[in-house]
């Protein structure tokens, strides 16, 4: 944005300076959540069975592992922001800060655990995919 015009410098800021941008990113993640969770539910419903070999073989396919990782990124981004709004609505003392920090740690832990597991399944499963 540089030092642009006065209008250019305030555009998208609003009174909280960054709220509008956060809100917008949340809407974007809502859109990708919609597509990816629909994909997951339809795919799970269409699987022939739910035993270990079927599920691992299913996840090991590139066009399953990758959308699943995208889903993890989209959903964690979305709930990270969503839960922060919930915390900010109801916690008004110091606990607000503590909870938001815990939420940050929770989100990153979930993201890394989930993606690592998907990759491990994908790279160690041999045999024919479901």
């Amino acid at each position: 944005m540089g030092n642009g015009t006065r209008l250019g410098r305030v555009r998208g800021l609003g009174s909280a300076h960054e709220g509008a941008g956060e809100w917008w990113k949340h809407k974007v993640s809502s859109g990708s959540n919609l597509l990816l969770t629909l994909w997951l539910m339809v795919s799970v419903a269409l699987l022939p069975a739910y035993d270990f070999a079927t599920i691992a073989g299913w996840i090991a396919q590139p066009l399953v592992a990758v959308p699943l990782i995208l889903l993890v990124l989209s959903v964690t981004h979305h709930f990270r922001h969503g839960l922060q709004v919930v915390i900010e609505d109801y916690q008004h003392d110091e606990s607000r800060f503590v909870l938001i920090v815990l939420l940050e740690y929770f989100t990153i832990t979930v993201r890394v655990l989930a993606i690592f597991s998907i990759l491990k399944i994908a790279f160690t499963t041999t045999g024919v995919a479901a």
Partner: protein
Amino acid sequence: MANVRNTARPLSPHLGIYKWGPHMAVSIIHRATGSGMATVGTGLFVWWLVALAYGPDAYATFLDTFTLSNGKLNILGYLVGVGLSFSLFQHMGSGVRHFFLDAGANFELRANKRSALATFAFSILATATFWVVLLEKAHG
């Protein structure tokens, strides 16, 4: 911090005078389902993936928690399974309704109420369809 409520002061009267309607139900259920999925749902999703990554034994422990020895779902399995899938579809429906509201549309009373009811119709139908497909497969 500065904005802790002073309990000596009365609440705004509108907080005591309201009538429940579909729009209010959709609003609070959107929050409840989102928060529930983000905590319980995320926990189970990660457990599922980590168990798969550990191998067949860990995955069997995961499945055993939610199934009987004959492979059918137990009560916890139904509660969590139906609860989370309904939460997802209900949140999905009200999330899509939110897109219209955020664009400034659909605030006319009748349309607003009808779309609120439609989110419930959608989520009940979608959850039922999902489980009919799953159970047909399990029970032939």
